[in-house]
């Protein structure tokens, strides 16, 4: 039996509800607590989520929607991979920001995303990225006065 996307979503929500309930159960009881308790509302939410997950499973079956196989479409898989690649670039930016400092990290982000999006690698890419970085630096640091990370170049700023 092939599970549709809604089936997977419903099952996922039931699992999430169980995990959330377990985490709510770990909340320490305070002497200042009221009758409901710090875990009261979260546990109600966990039950509600589990019910909704089950309802989703049920309605998918009752409506007899054609079972669409998850990720069977090649284009869709490609789209997910493209999104994952972009996400990886953004995660790399988060890790590189404190090390490389804002001007260099943001220039690399601009260039990397543009190239990843399909721009051909050529000197003008670097030029636009550096210009963009300078623009952001002036706006955030000089105009708004935000203390952006300077990274390993701290001594130079």
């Amino acid at each position, binding site marked *: 039996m092939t599970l549709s996307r809604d089936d997977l979503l419903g099952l996922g929500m039931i699992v999430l509800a169980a995990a959330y309930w377990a985490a709510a159960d770990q909340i320490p009881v305070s002497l200042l607590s009221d009758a409901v308790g710090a875990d009261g509302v979260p546990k109600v939410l966990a039950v509600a989520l589990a019910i909704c997950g089950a309802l989703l499973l049920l309605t998918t079956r009752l409506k007899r929607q054609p079972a669409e196989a998850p990720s069977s479409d090649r284009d869709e898989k490609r789209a997910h991979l493209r999104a994952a690649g972009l996400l990886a670039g953004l995660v790399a930016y988060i890790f590189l920001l404190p090390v490389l400092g804002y001007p260099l990290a943001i220039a690399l982000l601009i260039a990397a995303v543009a190239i990843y999006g399909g721009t051909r690698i050529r000197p003008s890419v670097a030029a636009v990225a550096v210009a963009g970085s300078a623009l952001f630096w002036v706006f955030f640091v000089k105009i*708004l006065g935000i203390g952006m990370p300077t990274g390993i170049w701290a001594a130079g700023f």
Partner: protein
Amino acid sequence: MDAFISALATLTNGWVMLAALGGVVWGIFGGALPGISPSIAMALLLPFTYGMDPTVALVMLASVYVGAEYGGSIPAILIRTPGTNSAAATTIDGFELARQGRAGEALGISLMSGLVGGLFGLLVLVIATEPLARVALAFTPPAYCALGILGLSVIASLSGRSLVKGLIAGILGLMIATVGTDPVSGVSRFTMGVPDLLSGIRPILIMVGLFAVAEMLEQISAPAWNKADRRDTRLKLPGLAVWRRLWKPQAIGCAIGTFEGVTPGAGGTIAAFMAYNEARRWSSKPEEFGKGSVEGIAAPEAANNVVTGTALVPLLSLGIPGSNSAAILLGGFLIHGLVPGPMLFVKAPDVVYGLYVGLFAANILMVLVGLVILTPCIWLVNRPKPWLIAFILALVMSGVYAIDNSVFDLGIVLTAGVVGYVMRRCGMPMLPMVLGVVLGFLVESNYRRSLVLSRGDHSIFIEDPVSLGLLLAAVALTGYSVWREYFKPQSKEAIA
């Protein structure tokens, strides 16, 4: 009265006018870019409003909304690609006129109909909001809790194609709102030992992630949009003879936009299409519709601009955001420690009246800016999409870091972006999640405060008349949505 006079003085406040101008320009550019909805354009600006005066910040955000609704019609007319969802109806006759070499005329009609709609929506906002808020002034903790529940019941009408998925999104939002320090006992919940989570997750981070980052993750694999032609795009304002034809469709757009705007979940898209249909029905030249009718542009453009004002009625009077853009504006209020709703007119009347004046200025500025911004807009629409995505993401990552100088916040935004991407792919609406995040604390803290007052007796919620009325309204709203979901499926609209 003092607040009103001080609001008029806002007109002479250079910063407010600059904010309105900047917001309109940004909004028109954002709206002109397919994929950047008014709410995304607003979300991108949200982090920058932190250090601003509340009135300046809110006027800027609201002006983005006004500008984006006009901006969306530019690519709709020029390249048959609506910049915003609500401009989709404008594409039908707008692009036909452009094909006939009358793009400038179509843009002029769109601009002036937007002005008429925007000013009418503002009038409704000014007249309807304060009386509604005055009724709600006698609020107690049970009433506030019931108000939050009424706000959450809007989820049912915002759920688009699936009520269950909307509810799931809403519950997930409420779960996010429980992260942090418990409002009553002070113990930490779901923080996993991470100090950055002790103060909870800011709604703004969720909004930016859900709307902006998720959209960029989608756009990276979406095909490039068409290029705009610079020829025949000199903006031409309608003459007197054309105005005679426009008043009726504009009136229809205003009436429908008012009703749809104050109804949570309806929004500008539905208003625009309904206005288009009604304008055709009442037109003396219905055969022109679809072949380049000026009325076919005026009606939807007036309707979707009316909504920029009327969608704020439930937000300002009751604190209930009925659309994505209203939810972002709510985020703008919360950033400055202001809670929209009954007490807003007591605690910060100058901000409310300042917002009215700012909206008026934004509508006027929209026309002035609209006259000169067309060429830069065409230039922007014709930029390669990879560069646009790169600069938008650079802006998002810089702006989010600037909120609290926190790298951890960047991680939350990316996580919210991934959640938003998955939700889109699963056909889950995002606004219910935003509602859950925003209203979760209000509902839980007032629910528990009420029970402390009543010593654990739940009857306090039905003994308080305001609370009872709001709860009944919530039940009615939910009941209607359930009926619509299961007994009238053919009328459902995809709102998300």
